[in-house]
């Protein structure tokens, strides 16, 4: 026998014998109970390992999202206001960390994610009754439900915090605390329930108009951005706006804040996969790509218009890109994310330079211009660019191929669904915000007095000064 045939023969014998033995094995009867118990234990160990990876990532993501509120948003907004209002501005976001956490634990989580009806959850999980450490198959089947609950809490915290940008430098601390706490229950919880809660009318799984919202473009950015616009219009302009020059007192702080927002947004988007698998990777990549493209888009737009690219423009562009891709982050291809970011940077910069100036409202820190507009664009673009290959959100067909999620896959109807989500977000935000503004203003008053506004929030609301250069 020639040498060449020797190796294949060895392989054949060494593979063939055991295979043959296995083929013979079933004839010996069912495996003994000991083996069954071992297999069951192994299966449980595999599940535990998967759960450990997923839980670790979602817990880390929760901390990243909290980082976005403080110090991310506190520094970003804080640097943009005048020095006399730095503490007041930071306190508004920080207050949300305290108040919303308590409200969420008592009743907020239940209203958002309890079964309830199509529009709002019920009180079955008030005081987190029934929310334990075993997974809830509707909310991330491999992580403890309490992980899901605490992760969602961080979203509930940052959403009202975003609104503070619209009424910067002119609202009483007490009134703001009451207004935003009520807002989170009246506007955020229903919106979260409709899109993400079991049985929600806009839920991707079984909703009447399934809306694709991966990480909160509609739930967080549209609701807060539109609420911000309503607040800016209702409260009126800051004293001296727009004639008086009110530049940021510290672009350095704002820069650091924006960088922390970018960093934390990976938890916001990639964590929304609720697992540590490939979907988290997709969302992670889309987040980075959109942030970068957004910064570039805004910078180019500003450079062409005003002759110089500002630091404020660069960081605003990144934030615009991030806000816009939020809804699409777990549904689109990476190249789509680049496009989404670029569009966001250009459109949002236009909003802020031209449209805001034209209408003359004082959205002090551009909460509407960036989050409201970005979120709306993002929601629409999701309908256009969602790809079943990235996320088979509507399941697979008989041949195992993902059902088209967005227009590029042939599902043009999704754009209509997205529009329903956008319309619902806008309406709920406008109505809920107006109602609460009215109620709080007529009872305890929202705006600070002219004297307090001139003195600054730090002294008038908190009896403190942010900086002591003489100390």
């Amino acid at each position, binding site marked *: 026998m020639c040498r060449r045939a020797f190796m294949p023969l060895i392989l054949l014998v060494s593979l063939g014998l055991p295979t043959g033995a296995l083929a013979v094995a079933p004839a010996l009867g069912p495996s003994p109970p000991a083996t069954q118990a071992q297999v069951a234990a192994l299966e449980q160990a595999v599940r535990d390992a998967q759960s450990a990876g997923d839980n670790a990532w979602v817990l880390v993501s929760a901390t990243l999202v909290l980082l976005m509120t403080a110090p991310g948003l506190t520094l970003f907004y804080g640097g943009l206001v005048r020095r006399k209002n730095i503490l007041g501005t930071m306190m508004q976001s920080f207050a949300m960390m305290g108040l919303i956490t308590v409200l969420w634990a008592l009743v907020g989580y239940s209203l958002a994610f309890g079964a309830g009806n199509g529009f709002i959850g019920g009180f079955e999980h008030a005081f987190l009754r029934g929310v334990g450490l075993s997974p809830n198959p509707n909310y991330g089947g491999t992580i403890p439900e309490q992980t899901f609950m605490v992760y969602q809490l961080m979203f509930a915290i940052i959403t009202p915090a975003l609104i503070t940008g619209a009424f910067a430098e002119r609202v009483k601390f007490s009134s703001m605390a009451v207004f935003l706490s009520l807002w989170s229950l009246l506007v955020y919880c229903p919106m979260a329930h409709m899109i993400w809660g079991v049985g929600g009318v806009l839920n991707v799984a079984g909703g009447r108009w399934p809306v694709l919202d991966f990480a909160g473009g509609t739930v967080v950015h549209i609701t807060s951005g539109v609420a911000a616009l309503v607040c800016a219009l209702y409260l009126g302009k800051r004293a001296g706006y*727009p004639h008086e*020059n*009110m*530049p*940021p007192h510290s672009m350095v702080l704002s820069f650091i804040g924006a960088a922390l927002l970018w960093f934390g947004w990976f938890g916001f988007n990639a964590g929304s996969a609720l697992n540590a698998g490939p979907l988290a990777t997709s969302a992670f990549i889309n987040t980075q790509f959109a942030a970068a493209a957004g910064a570039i888009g805004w910078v180019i737009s*500003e450079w062409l*218009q*005003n002759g*110089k690219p*500002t630091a*404020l423009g660069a960081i605003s562009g990144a934030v615009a890109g991030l806000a816009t891709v939020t809804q699409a982050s777990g549904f689109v291809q990476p190249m789509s994310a680049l496009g989404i970011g670029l569009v966001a940077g250009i459109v949002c*910069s236009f909003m*802020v*330079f*031209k449209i*805001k*100036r034209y209408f003359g409202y004082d959205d002090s820190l*551009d909460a509407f211009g960036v989050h409201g507009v970005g979120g709306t664009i993002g929601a629409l673009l999701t309908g256009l660019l969602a790809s079943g290959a990235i996320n088979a959100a509507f399941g697979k067909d008989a041949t195992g191929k993902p059902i088209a999620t967005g227009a590029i896959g042939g599902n043009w109807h999704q754009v209509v669904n997205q529009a329903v989500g956008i319309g619902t977000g806008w309406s709920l935000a406008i109505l809920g915000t107006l109602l609460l503004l009215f109620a709080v203003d007529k009872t305890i008053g929202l705006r600070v007095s002219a004297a307090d506004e001139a003195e600054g929030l730090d002294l008038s609301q908190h009896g403190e000064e942010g900086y002591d250069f003489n100390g």
Partner: protein
Amino acid sequence: MLKVEAIIQPAKLDAVKEALIEAGIDGMTILEARGHGRQKGHSEFYRGREYTIDLLPKVKIEMVVNDDMKEKVVEAILRTARTGHIGDGKIFISRVDDAIRIRNDERGETAI
């Protein structure tokens, strides 16, 4: 005794200080100031809107000197603070009624 107040460009401070010390001036007070003369400000952009900043950073040097030091001091400042462009600043000279050293109650020219 004369008080010499000089408002100069911040970038010139080191050079002026050295020249004054070489000229024999022992004491001076430096203040950070903002202001403008006929110098126009510069423009800055905030959110796409252009603003004119007309309060420009300056440095003010104050010193009290003997009458016979006046020309020396003025020459030292002019030589080191001048760039030839608008924004170089100004020097003001005024009379001082008295000077007192806090440490030991010396009065008059010995206190300077």
